[in-house]
Protein backbone atom coordinates (compact mmCIF):
# COMPACT_ATOMS: atom_id res chain seq x y z
CA UNK A 1 0.00 0.00 0.00
CA UNK A 2 1.24 3.45 -0.87
CA UNK A 3 0.66 6.51 1.25
CA UNK A 4 -0.48 9.69 -0.48
CA UNK A 5 -1.47 13.09 0.88
CA UNK A 6 -3.75 15.27 -1.21
CA UNK A 7 -4.43 18.78 0.12
CA UNK A 8 -3.64 17.55 3.62
CA UNK A 9 -5.86 14.46 3.46
CA UNK A 10 -3.88 11.25 3.73
CA UNK A 11 -4.98 7.91 2.38
CA UNK A 12 -3.47 4.60 1.37
CA UNK A 13 -3.94 3.18 -2.07
CA UNK A 14 -2.75 0.14 -3.98
CA UNK A 15 0.17 0.31 -6.32
CA UNK A 16 -0.73 1.46 -9.81
CA UNK A 17 -3.54 3.75 -8.69
CA UNK A 18 -3.55 7.19 -10.24
CA UNK A 19 -3.59 10.40 -8.22
CA UNK A 20 -7.10 11.09 -9.49
CA UNK A 21 -8.43 7.75 -8.30
CA UNK A 22 -6.80 8.33 -4.93
CA UNK A 23 -8.46 11.77 -4.74
CA UNK A 24 -11.80 10.23 -5.63
CA UNK A 25 -11.30 7.74 -2.83
CA UNK A 26 -10.96 10.66 -0.42
CA UNK A 27 -13.83 12.51 -2.10
CA UNK A 28 -15.15 16.01 -1.56
CA UNK A 29 -13.83 19.24 -2.97
CA UNK A 30 -10.30 18.02 -3.52
CA UNK A 31 -11.25 15.76 -6.43
CA UNK A 32 -9.83 17.31 -9.60
CA UNK A 33 -12.45 17.92 -12.31
CA UNK A 34 -12.19 15.77 -15.43
CA UNK A 35 -13.40 16.26 -18.95
CA UNK A 36 -11.79 13.34 -20.80
CA UNK A 37 -10.95 10.75 -18.14
CA UNK A 38 -13.59 8.06 -17.62
CA UNK A 39 -12.75 5.35 -15.12
CA UNK A 40 -14.80 2.76 -17.00
CA UNK A 41 -12.98 3.28 -20.28
CA UNK A 42 -9.50 1.88 -20.67
CA UNK A 43 -6.95 4.32 -22.04
CA UNK A 44 -9.05 7.42 -21.47
CA UNK A 45 -7.55 10.52 -19.90
CA UNK A 46 -4.55 12.71 -20.47
CA UNK A 47 -6.12 14.87 -23.16
CA UNK A 48 -8.06 17.72 -21.64
CA UNK A 49 -5.57 18.74 -18.90
CA UNK A 50 -8.31 19.91 -16.52
CA UNK A 51 -7.15 17.50 -13.83
CA UNK A 52 -3.66 19.00 -13.56
CA UNK A 53 -2.31 18.98 -10.00
CA UNK A 54 0.90 20.03 -8.34
CA UNK A 55 3.12 17.34 -6.86
CA UNK A 56 4.98 19.12 -4.07
CA UNK A 57 6.80 15.97 -2.93
CA UNK A 58 7.59 13.22 -5.42
CA UNK A 59 7.93 10.30 -3.05
CA UNK A 60 9.54 9.19 0.20
CA UNK A 61 12.72 8.13 -1.61
CA UNK A 62 12.94 11.16 -3.86
CA UNK A 63 11.26 14.09 -2.09
CA UNK A 64 11.95 16.62 -4.85
CA UNK A 65 8.77 18.22 -6.24
CA UNK A 66 7.85 17.45 -9.84
CA UNK A 67 8.99 20.29 -12.10
CA UNK A 68 5.66 20.84 -13.81
CA UNK A 69 2.01 20.30 -13.04
CA UNK A 70 1.02 16.73 -13.84
CA UNK A 71 -2.20 15.25 -15.17
CA UNK A 72 -3.59 13.44 -12.15
CA UNK A 73 -5.61 11.01 -14.27
CA UNK A 74 -2.51 9.41 -15.73
CA UNK A 75 0.13 9.85 -13.02
CA UNK A 76 0.52 6.84 -10.74
CA UNK A 77 0.86 7.34 -7.00
CA UNK A 78 4.26 6.87 -5.40
CA UNK A 79 4.75 6.13 -1.73
CA UNK A 80 4.78 9.26 0.40
CA UNK A 81 3.64 11.54 -2.41
CA UNK A 82 2.23 14.92 -1.51
CA UNK A 83 -0.18 16.55 -3.92
CA UNK A 84 -1.77 19.97 -3.98
CA UNK A 85 -4.97 20.57 -5.84
CA UNK A 86 -7.26 23.32 -4.55
CA UNK A 87 -4.66 24.53 -2.05
CA UNK A 88 -2.28 25.51 -4.84
CA UNK A 89 -2.96 28.89 -6.53
CA UNK A 90 -0.81 27.74 -9.44
CA UNK A 91 -3.18 24.83 -10.17
CA UNK A 92 -6.27 27.03 -9.98
CA UNK A 93 -4.70 29.62 -12.25
CA UNK A 94 -3.76 26.92 -14.76
CA UNK A 95 -7.22 25.43 -14.65
CA UNK A 96 -8.64 28.82 -15.55
CA UNK A 97 -6.43 28.87 -18.63
CA UNK A 98 -7.42 25.30 -19.53
CA UNK A 99 -11.09 26.27 -19.44
CA UNK A 100 -10.33 29.17 -21.74
CA UNK A 101 -8.56 26.77 -24.10
CA UNK A 102 -11.45 24.32 -24.09
CA UNK A 103 -13.87 27.14 -24.85
CA UNK A 104 -11.87 28.46 -27.79
CA UNK A 105 -13.72 26.37 -30.33
CA UNK A 106 -16.75 25.67 -28.23
CA UNK A 107 -19.76 27.74 -29.28
CA UNK A 108 -21.59 29.59 -26.53
CA UNK A 109 -24.95 28.27 -27.62
CA UNK A 110 -26.06 26.90 -24.26
CA UNK A 111 -29.59 28.32 -24.75
CA UNK A 112 -29.95 26.08 -27.81
CA UNK A 113 -27.95 23.08 -26.61
CA UNK A 114 -29.80 20.13 -25.10
CA UNK A 115 -26.90 19.39 -22.78
CA UNK A 116 -27.24 22.70 -20.92
CA UNK A 117 -27.90 22.12 -17.26
CA UNK A 118 -26.06 18.81 -17.15
CA UNK A 119 -22.98 19.79 -19.14
CA UNK A 120 -19.56 19.12 -17.61
CA UNK A 121 -17.96 21.97 -19.51
CA UNK A 122 -20.66 24.39 -18.39
CA UNK A 123 -20.13 23.39 -14.77
CA UNK A 124 -16.37 23.60 -15.17
CA UNK A 125 -16.41 27.04 -16.71
CA UNK A 126 -18.81 28.30 -14.06
CA UNK A 127 -16.50 26.98 -11.35
CA UNK A 128 -13.12 27.84 -12.82
CA UNK A 129 -13.58 30.00 -15.89
CA UNK A 130 -13.63 33.69 -16.40
CA UNK A 131 -16.87 35.32 -17.46
CA UNK A 132 -15.59 36.95 -20.62
CA UNK A 133 -13.69 35.54 -23.56
CA UNK A 134 -10.57 36.94 -25.17
CA UNK A 135 -11.03 34.93 -28.35
CA UNK A 136 -11.99 37.17 -31.26
CA UNK A 137 -11.31 34.90 -34.21
CA UNK A 138 -13.84 32.79 -36.05
CA UNK A 139 -14.68 29.55 -34.29
CA UNK A 140 -14.59 26.45 -36.44
CA UNK A 141 -17.94 25.37 -37.81
CA UNK A 142 -19.38 22.10 -39.02
CA UNK A 143 -22.75 20.92 -40.22
CA UNK A 144 -24.85 18.92 -37.83
CA UNK A 145 -24.93 15.30 -38.96
CA UNK A 146 -26.81 12.18 -38.00
CA UNK A 147 -24.74 9.22 -36.96
CA UNK A 148 -27.24 6.43 -36.74
CA UNK A 149 -30.97 6.76 -36.39
CA UNK A 150 -30.91 8.10 -32.85
CA UNK A 151 -27.73 10.11 -32.42
CA UNK A 152 -27.00 13.61 -33.61
CA UNK A 153 -23.41 14.86 -33.89
CA UNK A 154 -22.72 18.56 -33.35
CA UNK A 155 -19.05 18.70 -34.18
CA UNK A 156 -18.96 22.44 -33.26
CA UNK A 157 -19.35 21.59 -29.61
CA UNK A 158 -16.88 18.70 -29.46
CA UNK A 159 -13.85 19.15 -27.22
CA UNK A 160 -12.10 16.02 -28.54
CA UNK A 161 -12.06 14.10 -25.30
CA UNK A 162 -12.10 10.74 -27.17
CA UNK A 163 -14.52 9.26 -24.64
CA UNK A 164 -17.06 8.27 -27.28
CA UNK A 165 -14.36 6.68 -29.42
CA UNK A 166 -13.21 4.53 -26.51
CA UNK A 167 -16.81 3.65 -25.69
CA UNK A 168 -17.54 2.41 -29.18
CA UNK A 169 -14.24 0.54 -29.32
CA UNK A 170 -14.49 -1.06 -25.95
CA UNK A 171 -18.09 -1.84 -25.15
CA UNK A 172 -19.28 -2.62 -28.65
CA UNK A 173 -17.64 -4.91 -31.15
CA UNK A 174 -16.34 -3.44 -34.34
CA UNK A 175 -14.76 -0.05 -34.70
CA UNK A 176 -16.75 2.28 -36.88
CA UNK A 177 -16.06 5.69 -35.50
CA UNK A 178 -12.95 7.56 -34.54
CA UNK A 179 -11.02 10.78 -34.84
CA UNK A 180 -10.21 12.06 -38.30
CA UNK A 181 -7.45 14.54 -39.21
CA UNK A 182 -4.96 16.05 -36.80
CA UNK A 183 -4.30 18.95 -34.50
CA UNK A 184 -6.87 21.69 -34.51
CA UNK A 185 -8.47 20.21 -37.62
CA UNK A 186 -9.34 16.93 -35.92
CA UNK A 187 -12.95 15.88 -35.62
CA UNK A 188 -14.78 12.83 -34.48
CA UNK A 189 -16.74 11.09 -37.16
CA UNK A 190 -17.78 7.80 -38.64
CA UNK A 191 -16.48 6.37 -41.88
CA UNK A 192 -18.21 8.52 -44.50
CA UNK A 193 -21.29 9.17 -42.38
CA UNK A 194 -21.56 5.51 -41.58
CA UNK A 195 -24.19 4.90 -38.94
CA UNK A 196 -23.15 3.75 -35.48
CA UNK A 197 -25.52 0.84 -35.14
CA UNK A 198 -24.99 -1.38 -32.23
CA UNK A 199 -26.93 -2.42 -29.15
CA UNK A 200 -24.85 -0.17 -26.92
CA UNK A 201 -23.99 2.71 -29.23
CA UNK A 202 -26.33 5.10 -27.39
CA UNK A 203 -23.87 5.24 -24.53
CA UNK A 204 -21.74 7.70 -26.46
CA UNK A 205 -24.43 10.25 -25.55
CA UNK A 206 -23.96 9.61 -21.84
CA UNK A 207 -20.17 9.70 -21.91
CA UNK A 208 -20.04 12.92 -23.94
CA UNK A 209 -19.10 15.70 -21.48
CA UNK A 210 -20.59 18.38 -23.76
CA UNK A 211 -23.54 18.52 -26.13
CA UNK A 212 -21.69 17.16 -29.15
CA UNK A 213 -23.51 13.85 -29.16
CA UNK A 214 -27.18 14.17 -28.32
CA UNK A 215 -30.24 12.00 -28.26
CA UNK A 216 -32.39 12.57 -31.33
CA UNK A 217 -35.49 11.23 -29.62
CA UNK A 218 -35.13 14.01 -27.01
CA UNK A 219 -33.82 16.72 -29.28
CA UNK A 220 -35.36 20.09 -28.35
CA UNK A 221 -38.28 18.34 -26.63
CA UNK A 222 -37.75 19.87 -23.23
CA UNK A 223 -35.12 21.34 -20.95
CA UNK A 224 -33.53 19.05 -18.39
CA UNK A 225 -34.40 21.30 -15.47
CA UNK A 226 -38.13 21.09 -16.17
CA UNK A 227 -38.09 17.31 -15.92
CA UNK A 228 -38.22 15.03 -12.91
CA UNK A 229 -35.60 12.35 -12.60
CA UNK A 230 -36.76 8.94 -11.53
CA UNK A 231 -34.78 5.77 -10.95
CA UNK A 232 -36.34 3.05 -13.07
CA UNK A 233 -35.56 -0.51 -14.01
CA UNK A 234 -36.88 -3.20 -16.29
CA UNK A 235 -36.09 -6.76 -17.17
CA UNK A 236 -33.84 -6.21 -20.14
CA UNK A 237 -32.29 -9.17 -21.96
CA UNK A 238 -29.28 -7.18 -23.23
CA UNK A 239 -28.30 -4.88 -20.37
CA UNK A 240 -28.77 -4.57 -16.62
CA UNK A 241 -31.88 -2.48 -17.25
CA UNK A 242 -31.21 0.06 -14.50
CA UNK A 243 -31.67 3.60 -15.78
CA UNK A 244 -32.97 7.07 -15.06
CA UNK A 245 -36.18 8.40 -16.58
CA UNK A 246 -36.59 12.11 -17.25
CA UNK A 247 -40.28 12.61 -16.82
CA UNK A 248 -42.99 15.21 -16.88
CA UNK A 249 -46.22 13.85 -15.47
CA UNK A 250 -46.58 10.34 -16.81
CA UNK A 251 -44.61 11.00 -19.95
CA UNK A 252 -41.03 9.76 -20.25
CA UNK A 253 -39.05 12.26 -22.30
CA UNK A 254 -35.79 10.38 -22.27
CA UNK A 255 -33.92 7.57 -20.59
CA UNK A 256 -30.27 7.81 -19.56
CA UNK A 257 -27.82 5.77 -17.56
CA UNK A 258 -27.44 6.38 -13.85
CA UNK A 259 -24.59 8.79 -13.28
CA UNK A 260 -22.53 8.77 -10.11
CA UNK A 261 -21.13 11.80 -8.28
CA UNK A 262 -18.25 12.09 -10.75
CA UNK A 263 -20.59 12.19 -13.74
CA UNK A 264 -19.81 8.68 -14.90
CA UNK A 265 -22.52 6.16 -15.68
CA UNK A 266 -22.77 3.31 -13.21
CA UNK A 267 -23.84 0.83 -15.88
CA UNK A 268 -24.04 1.18 -19.61
CA UNK A 269 -27.57 0.69 -20.91
CA UNK A 270 -28.66 -0.71 -24.24
CA UNK A 271 -30.26 1.18 -27.08
CA UNK A 272 -33.62 -0.50 -26.64
CA UNK A 273 -33.89 0.81 -23.08
CA UNK A 274 -32.63 4.23 -24.10
CA UNK A 275 -34.52 4.97 -27.28
CA UNK A 276 -37.41 2.55 -27.64
CA UNK A 277 -38.95 2.24 -24.20
CA UNK A 278 -40.61 5.59 -23.57
CA UNK A 279 -43.79 4.25 -21.98
CA UNK A 280 -44.19 4.31 -18.21
CA UNK A 281 -45.69 0.83 -18.31
CA UNK A 282 -42.46 -0.61 -19.68
CA UNK A 283 -40.61 0.31 -16.51
CA UNK A 284 -40.79 -0.21 -12.80
CA UNK A 285 -40.33 3.13 -11.05
CA UNK A 286 -38.19 2.96 -7.94
CA UNK A 287 -38.48 6.58 -6.85
CA UNK A 288 -37.00 10.02 -7.38
CA UNK A 289 -33.30 10.19 -8.07
CA UNK A 290 -31.19 12.36 -5.81
CA UNK A 291 -29.72 15.29 -7.65
CA UNK A 292 -27.06 17.52 -6.13
CA UNK A 293 -28.51 20.67 -4.62
CA UNK A 294 -25.95 22.68 -6.59
CA UNK A 295 -27.33 21.40 -9.89
CA UNK A 296 -29.89 23.45 -11.76
CA UNK A 297 -31.85 20.25 -12.33
CA UNK A 298 -32.83 20.29 -8.65
CA UNK A 299 -34.27 23.82 -8.86
CA UNK A 300 -37.94 23.86 -7.77
CA UNK A 301 -37.78 20.20 -6.79
CA UNK A 302 -38.51 20.07 -3.11
CA UNK A 303 -37.71 17.27 -0.75
CA UNK A 304 -39.87 16.34 2.16
CA UNK A 305 -37.73 16.11 5.25
CA UNK A 306 -38.25 13.39 7.77
CA UNK A 307 -39.86 14.66 10.92
CA UNK A 308 -37.18 15.81 13.33
CA UNK A 309 -34.49 16.21 10.70
CA UNK A 310 -32.16 19.07 11.46
CA UNK A 311 -30.41 21.16 8.90
CA UNK A 312 -26.97 21.90 10.23
CA UNK A 313 -26.59 25.71 10.11
CA UNK A 314 -22.84 25.48 9.64
CA UNK A 315 -22.48 23.41 6.48
CA UNK A 316 -26.18 23.36 5.50
CA UNK A 317 -26.19 19.60 5.43
CA UNK A 318 -29.17 17.59 6.48
CA UNK A 319 -28.07 15.55 9.44
CA UNK A 320 -30.60 12.79 9.29
CA UNK A 321 -31.18 11.14 5.94
CA UNK A 322 -34.23 12.66 4.31
CA UNK A 323 -37.09 10.71 2.95
CA UNK A 324 -38.72 11.80 -0.24
Amino acid at each position, binding site marked *: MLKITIDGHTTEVEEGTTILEAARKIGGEIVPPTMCYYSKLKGSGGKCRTCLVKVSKGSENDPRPMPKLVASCSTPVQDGMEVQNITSPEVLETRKAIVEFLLINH*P*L*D*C*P*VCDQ*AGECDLQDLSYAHGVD*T*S*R*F*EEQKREFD*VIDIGANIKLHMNRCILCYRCVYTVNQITNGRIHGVLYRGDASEISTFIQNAIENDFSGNVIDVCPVGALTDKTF*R*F*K*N*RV*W*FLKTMDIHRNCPTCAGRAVAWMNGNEIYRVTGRKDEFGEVEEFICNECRFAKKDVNDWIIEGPRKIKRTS*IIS*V*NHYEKLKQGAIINPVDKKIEKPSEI
Partner: protein
Amino acid sequence: MTLTNRTKVVSNKQMTFVESLYLPAIFAGMWITIKHVFRKKITIKYPEQKREIADIYRGQHILKRDEQGRERCTACGLCALACPAEAITMIAAERIAGEEKLYREEKYAKVYEINMLRCIYCGLCESACPKEAIFLTQKIVDAEYTREAFIYGKDKLVEPIDMDKRIDVSKRQTDKVLKFKQLKHERHNI
Protein backbone atom coordinates in the same frame (compact mmCIF):
# COMPACT_ATOMS: atom_id res chain seq x y z
CA MET B 1 -57.60 50.38 25.87
CA THR B 2 -58.45 52.52 22.89
CA LEU B 3 -57.13 51.84 19.45
CA THR B 4 -57.86 55.30 18.10
CA ASN B 5 -58.50 58.77 19.42
CA ARG B 6 -61.53 59.24 17.18
CA THR B 7 -63.95 57.01 19.01
CA LYS B 8 -67.32 58.48 19.85
CA VAL B 9 -69.66 57.20 22.43
CA VAL B 10 -73.07 56.67 20.83
CA SER B 11 -75.87 57.97 22.96
CA ASN B 12 -79.59 57.38 22.69
CA LYS B 13 -80.56 60.83 23.95
CA GLN B 14 -83.61 62.57 22.50
CA MET B 15 -82.93 64.82 19.47
CA THR B 16 -83.64 68.50 19.85
CA PHE B 17 -86.29 70.19 17.61
CA VAL B 18 -83.69 71.59 15.22
CA GLU B 19 -81.98 68.26 14.94
CA SER B 20 -85.24 66.48 14.23
CA LEU B 21 -85.78 68.68 11.17
CA TYR B 22 -82.66 67.02 9.67
CA LEU B 23 -82.10 70.10 7.47
CA PRO B 24 -78.82 71.29 9.07
CA ALA B 25 -77.34 67.81 8.67
CA ILE B 26 -78.51 67.62 5.03
CA PHE B 27 -76.97 71.02 4.19
CA ALA B 28 -73.75 70.13 5.97
CA GLY B 29 -73.52 67.01 3.84
CA MET B 30 -74.43 68.83 0.63
CA TRP B 31 -71.81 71.44 1.34
CA ILE B 32 -69.10 68.80 1.33
CA THR B 33 -70.38 67.43 -1.98
CA ILE B 34 -70.58 70.83 -3.65
CA LYS B 35 -67.10 71.72 -2.41
CA HIS B 36 -65.70 68.69 -4.27
CA VAL B 37 -67.32 69.70 -7.58
CA PHE B 38 -65.01 72.68 -7.84
CA ARG B 39 -61.88 70.86 -6.78
CA LYS B 40 -59.32 69.42 -9.20
CA LYS B 41 -60.50 66.00 -10.33
CA ILE B 42 -58.36 63.08 -9.33
CA THR B 43 -59.73 60.72 -11.97
CA ILE B 44 -58.83 60.74 -15.65
CA LYS B 45 -60.87 59.75 -18.69
CA TYR B 46 -59.13 56.49 -19.56
CA PRO B 47 -58.59 55.34 -22.31
CA GLU B 48 -58.80 58.70 -24.13
CA GLN B 49 -56.54 60.18 -21.55
CA LYS B 50 -53.60 58.22 -20.14
CA ARG B 51 -51.38 58.72 -17.18
CA GLU B 52 -47.73 59.34 -17.71
CA ILE B 53 -45.74 56.23 -16.86
CA ALA B 54 -42.04 55.56 -16.51
CA ASP B 55 -39.88 54.44 -19.42
CA ILE B 56 -39.10 51.26 -17.62
CA TYR B 57 -42.67 50.53 -16.58
CA ARG B 58 -43.28 46.81 -16.52
CA GLY B 59 -46.38 46.05 -18.57
CA GLN B 60 -47.22 43.59 -21.31
CA HIS B 61 -44.35 41.52 -22.72
CA ILE B 62 -43.06 41.46 -26.26
CA LEU B 63 -40.85 38.98 -28.02
CA LYS B 64 -38.30 40.96 -29.98
CA ARG B 65 -37.07 40.41 -33.50
CA ASP B 66 -33.54 41.28 -34.57
CA GLU B 67 -32.52 43.80 -37.23
CA GLN B 68 -33.21 41.29 -39.98
CA GLY B 69 -36.68 40.49 -38.68
CA ARG B 70 -35.80 37.09 -37.26
CA GLU B 71 -37.27 36.01 -33.95
CA ARG B 72 -34.68 36.20 -31.22
CA CYS B 73 -36.26 33.68 -28.87
CA THR B 74 -34.64 30.28 -28.95
CA ALA B 75 -36.92 28.60 -26.40
CA CYS B 76 -34.15 27.99 -23.88
CA GLY B 77 -36.65 28.01 -21.04
CA LEU B 78 -34.72 30.31 -18.73
CA CYS B 79 -37.59 32.81 -18.51
CA ALA B 80 -39.94 30.02 -17.50
CA LEU B 81 -37.40 28.86 -14.94
CA ALA B 82 -36.97 32.35 -13.53
CA CYS B 83 -40.69 33.09 -13.45
CA PRO B 84 -41.86 33.07 -9.82
CA ALA B 85 -45.51 32.83 -10.87
CA GLU B 86 -44.93 30.02 -13.38
CA ALA B 87 -46.80 32.00 -15.99
CA ILE B 88 -44.63 31.11 -18.98
CA THR B 89 -44.81 27.89 -20.98
CA MET B 90 -43.22 27.03 -24.28
CA ILE B 91 -42.72 24.25 -26.77
CA ALA B 92 -39.55 24.29 -28.83
CA ALA B 93 -39.14 23.19 -32.41
CA GLU B 94 -36.24 22.77 -34.77
CA ARG B 95 -35.76 25.24 -37.58
CA ILE B 96 -35.94 23.55 -40.97
CA ALA B 97 -34.04 24.63 -44.08
CA GLY B 98 -35.59 27.73 -45.61
CA GLU B 99 -36.68 29.23 -42.31
CA GLU B 100 -33.39 31.02 -41.64
CA LYS B 101 -35.06 34.37 -42.25
CA LEU B 102 -37.70 33.71 -39.62
CA TYR B 103 -35.65 32.41 -36.72
CA ARG B 104 -32.16 33.32 -35.56
CA GLU B 105 -31.08 30.02 -34.09
CA GLU B 106 -31.58 26.42 -35.04
CA LYS B 107 -34.16 26.09 -32.30
CA TYR B 108 -37.16 28.34 -31.86
CA ALA B 109 -40.34 28.53 -29.81
CA LYS B 110 -43.19 26.92 -31.69
CA VAL B 111 -45.58 27.76 -28.88
CA TYR B 112 -44.87 30.51 -26.38
CA GLU B 113 -47.57 31.40 -23.92
CA ILE B 114 -47.75 33.81 -21.03
CA ASN B 115 -50.71 33.70 -18.72
CA MET B 116 -51.28 37.38 -18.02
CA LEU B 117 -53.44 36.58 -15.02
CA ARG B 118 -50.65 34.63 -13.36
CA CYS B 119 -47.95 37.11 -14.32
CA ILE B 120 -46.90 39.47 -11.55
CA TYR B 121 -44.89 41.75 -13.88
CA CYS B 122 -41.70 41.38 -11.89
CA GLY B 123 -39.47 41.44 -14.96
CA LEU B 124 -37.35 38.44 -13.99
CA CYS B 125 -37.95 36.89 -17.42
CA GLU B 126 -36.40 39.98 -18.95
CA SER B 127 -33.32 39.63 -16.73
CA ALA B 128 -33.02 35.90 -17.31
CA CYS B 129 -33.17 36.06 -21.11
CA PRO B 130 -29.74 35.34 -22.62
CA LYS B 131 -30.84 36.31 -26.12
CA GLU B 132 -32.46 39.66 -25.35
CA ALA B 133 -35.67 38.29 -26.74
CA ILE B 134 -38.26 39.06 -24.09
CA PHE B 135 -38.90 42.54 -22.77
CA LEU B 136 -41.66 44.13 -20.78
CA THR B 137 -43.22 47.23 -22.29
CA GLN B 138 -45.26 50.21 -21.17
CA LYS B 139 -48.42 48.75 -22.65
CA ILE B 140 -51.05 47.80 -20.12
CA VAL B 141 -52.72 44.45 -20.69
CA ASP B 142 -56.21 44.83 -22.10
CA ALA B 143 -59.31 43.82 -20.20
CA GLU B 144 -60.95 40.64 -21.46
CA TYR B 145 -64.20 38.82 -20.88
CA THR B 146 -62.83 35.30 -20.42
CA ARG B 147 -59.89 33.81 -18.59
CA GLU B 148 -58.70 31.99 -21.69
CA ALA B 149 -58.26 35.29 -23.48
CA PHE B 150 -55.56 36.26 -21.00
CA ILE B 151 -53.29 33.45 -22.15
CA TYR B 152 -51.24 35.34 -24.69
CA GLY B 153 -49.68 33.31 -27.47
CA LYS B 154 -47.08 34.24 -30.02
CA ASP B 155 -49.69 36.08 -32.11
CA LYS B 156 -49.94 38.73 -29.40
CA LEU B 157 -46.41 38.63 -28.03
CA VAL B 158 -44.09 38.70 -31.05
CA GLU B 159 -43.47 42.23 -32.26
CA PRO B 160 -44.49 43.16 -35.81
CA ILE B 161 -41.96 42.46 -38.54
CA ASP B 162 -42.54 45.93 -40.00
CA MET B 163 -39.63 48.17 -39.03
CA ASP B 164 -41.87 51.18 -38.29
CA LYS B 165 -44.02 49.22 -35.88
CA ARG B 166 -41.13 47.86 -33.86
CA ILE B 167 -41.16 48.60 -30.16
CA ASP B 168 -38.19 50.49 -28.82
CA VAL B 169 -36.72 48.93 -25.71
CA SER B 170 -33.42 50.79 -25.66
CA LYS B 171 -34.43 52.78 -22.58
CA ARG B 172 -34.79 49.54 -20.65
CA GLN B 173 -31.16 48.65 -21.28
CA THR B 174 -28.48 50.24 -19.20
CA ASP B 175 -25.35 51.78 -20.66
CA LYS B 176 -23.41 48.83 -19.33
CA VAL B 177 -25.49 46.39 -21.36
CA LEU B 178 -25.27 48.48 -24.51
CA LYS B 179 -21.52 48.76 -24.11
CA PHE B 180 -21.24 45.01 -23.57
CA LYS B 181 -23.02 44.39 -26.85
CA GLN B 182 -20.37 46.37 -28.71
CA LEU B 183 -17.59 43.97 -27.68
CA LYS B 184 -16.25 42.04 -30.60
CA HIS B 185 -15.76 38.77 -28.79
CA GLU B 186 -19.29 38.86 -27.43
CA ARG B 187 -20.81 38.91 -30.87
CA HIS B 188 -22.78 35.71 -30.26
CA ASN B 189 -24.99 37.93 -28.13
CA ILE B 190 -25.78 40.56 -30.73
